[in-house]
């Protein structure tokens, strides 16, 4: 049996993959950047925790509900986003992060600074899910979300998103209803972040507002940006790399934020499409190495 310590790492990796993907959908496809995505993880975590603790709802209902609540707030942010230019949207999402933490700290029903304790472990066939089961659940959810995002990206919805990201006004001239698709991108992205929040809450069994601060939003952004926006493999591999590496390389632990910061700077300056994105040195290198066996619809010549 795999020792519990690796279950912990696997679960956190899955949660990070979901968070990274949520940024991947929003920034990678629809070109809308969020610097406060930890707020949506918080909303998902708190919704799921409160539903299971105070209202005794089962996890299997609470988790989708948490995703829905988070998506609702995402919808609201999407409507606001329509009026804002790119970099101001980024500051607004940053502000949202501080506001959500502030509300969780000061509004009466969220347990204030004490947070919410003894969140129930999800029940399956009548008894508590073991550590291995929970990791399997996380992996299944990651697979499901990756498949859904992959389908969305290939469908015409993904096409519209890419049109918005490339040249918004030209896409509009082509009949793309910009508002509808931007809001839809926010809804999908925040729903995924809500699911990640719910998984986090039911794994840690104990959450406080301080878990979802602004540094976490920076880390989520780093996962996706480093991996490479615009292709699913970017955020996924970025998340795996940046979750496993610190656990493995002990010395990184103390320099974590320094490495994340510098990585963000270097990647953004020299390799904006990320390590695993299109045309990045890694992808091209791997392609040459494996002789282009990765068929991207005849990209040759």
């Amino acid at each position, binding site marked *: 049996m795999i020792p519990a310590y690796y279950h912990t790492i696997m679960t956190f990796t899955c949660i990070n993959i979901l968070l990274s993907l949520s940024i991947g959908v929003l920034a990678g496809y629809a070109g809308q950047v969020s610097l406060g995505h930890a707020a949506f993880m918080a909303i998902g975590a708190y919704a799921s925790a409160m539903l299971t603790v105070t209202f005794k709802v089962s996890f299997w209902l609470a988790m989708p509900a948490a995703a829905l609540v988070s998506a609702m707030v995402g919808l609201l942010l999407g409507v606001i986003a329509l009026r804002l230019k790119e970099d101001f949207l980024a500051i607004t999402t940053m502000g949202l992060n501080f506001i959500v933490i502030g509300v969780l700290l000061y509004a009466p029903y969220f347990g204030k600074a004490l947070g919410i*304790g003894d969140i129930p472990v999800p029940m399956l066939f009548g008894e508590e899910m073991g550590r291995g089961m929970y990791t399997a659940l996380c992996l299944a959810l990651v697979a499901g979300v990756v498949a859904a995002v992959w389908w969305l990206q290939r469908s015409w919805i993904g096409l519209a998103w890419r049109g918005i990201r490339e040249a918004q006004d030209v896409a509009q001239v082509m009949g793309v209803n910009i508002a509808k698709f931007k809001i839809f991108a926010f809804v999908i992205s925040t729903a995924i972040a809500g699911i990640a929040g719910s998984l986090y809450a039911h794994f840690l069994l*104990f959450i406080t507002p301080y878990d979802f601060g602004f540094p976490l939003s920076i880390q989520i952004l780093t996962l996706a940006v480093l991996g490479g926006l615009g292709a699913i493999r970017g955020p996924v591999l970025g998340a795996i790399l940046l979750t496993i590496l610190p656990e493995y390389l002990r010395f990184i632990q103390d320099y974590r934020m320094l490495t994340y910061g510098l990585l963000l700077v270097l990647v953004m300056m020299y390799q904006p499409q990320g390590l695993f994105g299109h045309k990045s040195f890694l992808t091209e290198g791997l392609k040459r190495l494996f002789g282009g066996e990765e068929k991207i619809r005849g990209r040759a010549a």
Partner: protein
Amino acid sequence: MKKAIVAACLALVLCLPLAALADEVKIGFHAPLTGWAAADGQSALRGAQLAVEFINADGGINGNKVAMVYYDDRIEAKESVIVARKLIESDRVVGVVSGSYSTPTRAAAPIYDRNKVPYISTIGTHPEIPMNRDYVFQIAVMSPIHGRVGAWMAAETLKAKSAVLLVMDNDFGSAVTDGFRIMAPKYGINILKEYNYPLGEKDFRSLLSNIKNDNPDVLWASGYYEEAAQIAKQAKELGLKATIIGQEGYDSPKFFELAGDATNGVVITTNLDRGSQSPMAQKFLAEFFKQHKVAADMVAASAFDGMLVMAHAIKTAGTKPDDIAKAIGEMKNFEGVATGPLLAFDAQGVVTRYIPVQIVKDQAFTSLTVCKDPKLITP
């Protein structure tokens, strides 16, 4: 796309630990070595290491050397859970001592309890930590007790008639104040007003101006040493006359370094009595100063005691978790610690001890009085 998922599983399985082998007794320890609470974390680590030195100096545990396995929990609940799993499964420690604040300790407590690993919280004082968990003990006094002793001392020693509460908004800050809020009226102290502030706040001038207006005899302010230093400094700048009453959160040399002589006259309830005559306390204070050139604080003393209690329990009862838990639970009047005799552990595993009250005289804590009233000090 399939490639990404396959790569993911491959990467995860790769991380296999190095199985450590030794016949020494391994005790786990975790504290915030980085992050905003790093000063207390370092101090706790030094206290724990000093304890291990003392234990190994006089023969270790029944001849086996004690080895301390410690990790940094970065004062984050998430990290503390990861550390807990690592200590239990990879390092297979016999028992664990927490040198961290309430939040990370609260997150880890259920994991140690479920895996039957004895866990001692040294400075985490939140009531939820030991609550009906047989393997979790707390040698730090319950936070509300500091509030009660604070009220008793304000009335009896400081002869205060009115008070204002300035409460830090986190689990420690509010739990401590509950004690004072309940006990103060019983001692005839009228609580004029109550203000709260978020953790990490730096500017208290707008609140302190109001408090100066309220003109209380004492100002009960809960916070860690950084907030406390700003409150003391800004209160002096604004000419606030009230005596400031604090708790163990103030107890750190950084409090004096940051606030300088604005700290004179501040009164705190804490665990470490600088004036204590117990031989172990004197030995600890002297040895700590010799090694680190800075006066030991309550955090170091508590971590030191946590290790000694754990080691004593293992020495008397062996390494089986149930025996260790029973041994700690039944400890009575244990003198072998720096912070005064540990009188007893109650059913929930929380210690009862005398609460020393210290007053600051030219930037150093000196003993003012000790509260021994069982009514106040039993949880």
